[in-house]
């Protein structure tokens, strides 16, 4: 179980997160939606302390790391229990696909090279990239790179995978393959927190939806409740705008076709 308690974060004196409380149960997939600049990325980065919160604490299983007192060692333990998938993939450029996946297995989890290679191959199988195992990241398409990013996270068998807009840097025709992979691992019961703008994907894959605006959680609940029956004005407006944009996109497409 993952629990965030009163997470606050300011950059300078600009508050970006204003006290976030969130509980994610084991095996749950939680999607965070919200307008640009609402603090979604920051929240995700606070969970593994890539960004140290100004206030509050993060609890995963038996360990609790608090914003101020969290020591280097505690943060490291926290990071060993989490993994992250980045918007810009951030694959290690100087390592091949399989080396990217093996890196954490060897350096962090102290597996032998052979074990790591075996485990990595299994994970690559899951994301459908075994034949690219010896390619370098630059030789892959964006979609393939992101699937390696997911494999790198998955290989570590973390308590939770944090995904920050995993498909928003991708060309539209490559989004599908990545969402497909995420969906598949969601069905395996891996806990995930996903920041995404893909509303229909979120509806499809999530057990729980969190809607954020201006550094706060405005509304949260099951997808059925949030999408069909939002209570808050801000949530309604957000979905209305999203739908309108989607509509425009579709009409544009149809006019092109």
């Amino acid at each position, binding site marked *: 179980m993952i629990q965030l308690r009163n997470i606050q974060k300011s950059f300078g004196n600009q508050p970006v997160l204003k006290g976030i409380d969130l509980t994610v149960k084991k095996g749950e997939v939680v999607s965070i939606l919200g307008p640009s600049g609402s603090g979604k990325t920051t929240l995700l980065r606070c969970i*593994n302390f*890539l960004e140290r919160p100004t206030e509050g604490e993060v609890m995963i299983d038996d360990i609790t790391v608090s914003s101020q007192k969290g020591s*280097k060692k505690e943060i*490291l333990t926290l*990071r*060993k229990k*989490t*993994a*992250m998938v*980045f918007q*810009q993939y*951030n*694959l*290690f*450029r*100087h*390592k*091949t696909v399989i080396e990217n996946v093996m*890196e*954490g297995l060897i*350096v*962090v989890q102290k597996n032998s090279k052979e074990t790591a290679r075996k485990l990595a191959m299994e994970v690559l199988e899951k994301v459908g990239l075994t034949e690219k195992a010896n390619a*370098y*990241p*630059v*030789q892959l398409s964006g979609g393939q790179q992101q699937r390696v990013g997911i494999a*790198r*996270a998955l290989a*570590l068998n973390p308590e939770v995978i*944090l995904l920050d807009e995993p498909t928003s840097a991708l060309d539209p025709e490559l989004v599908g393959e990545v969402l497909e992979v995420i969906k598949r691992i969601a069905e395996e019961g891996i806990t995930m927190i996903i920041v995404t703008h893909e509303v229909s994907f979120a509806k499809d894959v999530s057990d729980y939806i969190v809607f954020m605006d201006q550094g706060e959680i405005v509304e949260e609940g099951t997808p059925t409740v949030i999408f069909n029956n939002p209570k808050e004005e801000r949530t309604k407006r957000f979905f209305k705008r999203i739908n309108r944009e989607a509509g425009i996109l579709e009409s544009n497409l149809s006019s092109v076709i």
Partner: protein
Amino acid sequence: MQIDIPFIFMALIEIFKALPLTIIITLVPLIIGFLIGIGITIIRIRKVKGLYSLANFYVSFLRGTPALMHIMLIYLGFPLLIDKLAVTFRWTFQSTSIPILLFVLMALSLTAGAYMSEIIRAGILAVDQGQLEAAESIGMTNFQAMRRIVFPQAIAISLPNLCNIFIGFLHTSSIAFIVSQKELTGATNIVASNNLKFLEAYIAAALIYWGLTIISEKVTALLEKRVTVYNRGGVI
């Protein structure tokens, strides 16, 4: 004007025998300087208290003064220091028993350290911040992330600069002749004055340095291809 072409060939052979010393005076400082450079870079990036301004001054001063000064300061100053220490600690050791070469190597190592630290720092800063974050997100310590992910990429990025500094130090090593080292330039000087054929001797020396430089450039081009294999066809 008369140029004794056969003498140039003779001089080439004679001078070339001094190559090992030139290589030593080039490579040893670069290797030690590389280590110093890493240390300085860590201090500067981590902003280590107390050492930070000292490191900045070291880099600025050594880059701001001619290498000749470094050699002379160490060559003249270090023996004084040693002798003073010898007196205080009652060593029987005398500074005159230290070969001059050692002072040259020390001085140029300090010089190289300053230039290296700039190269390494630039390389590290050129590595995408996301690489470090990705490494830390999978639970690596900052040190592991730097050593395994950031540093190798920084070195690959720095390769052209490292080649330049190698060529630079190959040429700088010629200054050592001023403190009577018999490396390429020192040997040239001897060949020239023994035979009173200065122009020919220096033409020979120029040819040797020129050849060495061209070889270094070719080797770097090869290395660059290998090391940055992961960049092939990709944008940086």
